[in-house]
């Protein structure tokens, strides 16, 4: 095989139709652009109508590949059903799904309540369960079909300051692993555990201050928070042909993590 032809083939997304939820946000839109550039037809869905239309149009312009921006509230089961119908009506198939929608605010560990906990579970966990379930009949028909979950480092480490978000993400992590066990050989399921990524205002809304963010930058082994593209690139790899024997894994994308010691400092 000629040099680089092999690589083009491994990372080609030509002819693949991929849905990304929360697609108007930082990571979702970076992923949509990357997959579009690699040949995919991408459907981004988001609750924010204005942004999802705008982002889809911008990316379609940049990549030259069809990009559909659809409004859907991921916490509404009926809207997810309609979403799947719309995608199938337009493209006739679904080859990949990125359950990327998710958000969580800082809450003191004893400051939450039933409503807040359930609300977080609906957004971060149930949204992915429902949409994956509705997509399965279509995914099963595609070659190298793949589902990736945008999870967080709070989902697999103690995170008392994000009790609603972290417990919902922890549930999402185990859900992905369970799906992987029964999903093969037809569909692969993998998780990315995301570290601190610069997504602009969204982080500030979650309760981080500029000082906190500077401290995070300094503490990360790679000396910077992630770019949305860093995460998009990891998700792309997991969806590619190069990863066709990869399922049920959690890949941490966190700049090498933070220097931290469990021992109290002596000085």
């Amino acid at each position, binding site marked *: 095989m000629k040099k680089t032809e092999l690589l083009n083939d491994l990372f080609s997304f030509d002819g693949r139709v991929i849905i990304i939820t929360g697609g108007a946000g930082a990571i979702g839109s970076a992923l949509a652009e990357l997959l579009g550039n690699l040949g995919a037809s991408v459907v981004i869905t988001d609750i924010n109508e204005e942004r999802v239309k705008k982002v889809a149009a911008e990316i379609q312009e940049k990549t030259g590949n069809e990009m559909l921006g659809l409004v859907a509230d991921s916490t509404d089961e009926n809207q997810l059903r309609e979403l799947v119908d719309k995608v199938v009506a337009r493209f006739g198939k679904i080859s990949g799904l990125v359950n990327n929608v998710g958000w969580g605010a800082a809450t003191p560990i004893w400051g939450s309540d039933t409503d807040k906990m359930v609300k977080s579970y609906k957004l971060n966990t149930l949204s992915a369960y429902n949409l994956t379930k509705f997509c399965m009949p279509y995914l099963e028909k595609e070659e190298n079909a793949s589902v990736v979950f945008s999870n967080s480092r709070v989902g697999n480490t103690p995170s008392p300051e994000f009790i609603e978000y972290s417990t919902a993400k922890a549930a999402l992590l185990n859900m992905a692993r369970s799906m992987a066990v029964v999903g093969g050989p037809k569909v692969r399921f993998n998780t990315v555990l995301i570290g601190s990524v610069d997504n602009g205002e969204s982080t500030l809304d979650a309760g981080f201050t500029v000082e906190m963010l500077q401290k995070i930058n300094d503490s990360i*082994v790679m000396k*910077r928070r992630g770019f949305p593209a860093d995460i998009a690139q990891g998700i792309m790899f997991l969806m590619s042909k190069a990863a066709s024997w990869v399922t049920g894994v959690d890949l941490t994308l966190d700049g090498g993590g933070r220097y931290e010691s469990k021992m109290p400092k002596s000085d």
Partner: protein
Amino acid sequence: MEITNLFNLKNRVAVITGGGNGIGKASALILAQAGASVAVSDLKLPDAESVAEEIRQMGGKAIAVECNVGKDEDLVNLVERANAELGGIHILVNNVGVGGGGRENPFKIGVDKFVWVFELNVFSAWRLSQLCAPYMRDGGYGSIINITSMGSINKSPNMSAYAGSKAALNHMSANLAYDYGQYGIRVNCVGPGATKTAALASVLTPEIEAKMLAGTPIKRLGEVEDISGAVLYFAAPVSEWVSGQVLFVNGGGVQTLD
């Protein structure tokens, strides 16, 4: 990052141990496909030479170096030659691993055997990392990829030497990721499940294979290209914010010999 640069290893030099066959060979070939110059090393020089020749045939640059990873002078020589003949070192794939067949008798396994497994699987990877890191630091790009195994996290019968050594390799990698991170050097592991190589063929029977597939969601054993794809991911700029990780490539399951 420009899309064409995600997997671009042009002007990068990769060093691979046990590159003459199996997973090492597949890794050498795919890194060369991405544009890297490759120092293919192996205990068996003719095997390394034929892989280097294959790379040259496809228009790439490669040298073959005889290297027993159990000998310090061989490791030093490998690094010196790679740097001198290919111009720097940016990527290191510690691929050699012995003892994967397991089947040791816990009452009888000798000290020599146990130590030998750790020397080849852990010590050589640590030492080569130490030898290559200064070139990576000075060259402004560094990625170390250690080939571990599912044995590193599974409890497998009669395999304490191999499994223990691979677990040590995982954790050593995570620590080196901390230590080298500030110099722009990333350290990650790829953990293959049962992959069709000579090493596996020597212990595989149809019965074992059937049992392995029963526990594997993606109903096939691994091909060397499944593993080298993950090696490429960690070697290339596409993963520039990823370090200290173990990526298991195992079809979603556990394949055990016994």
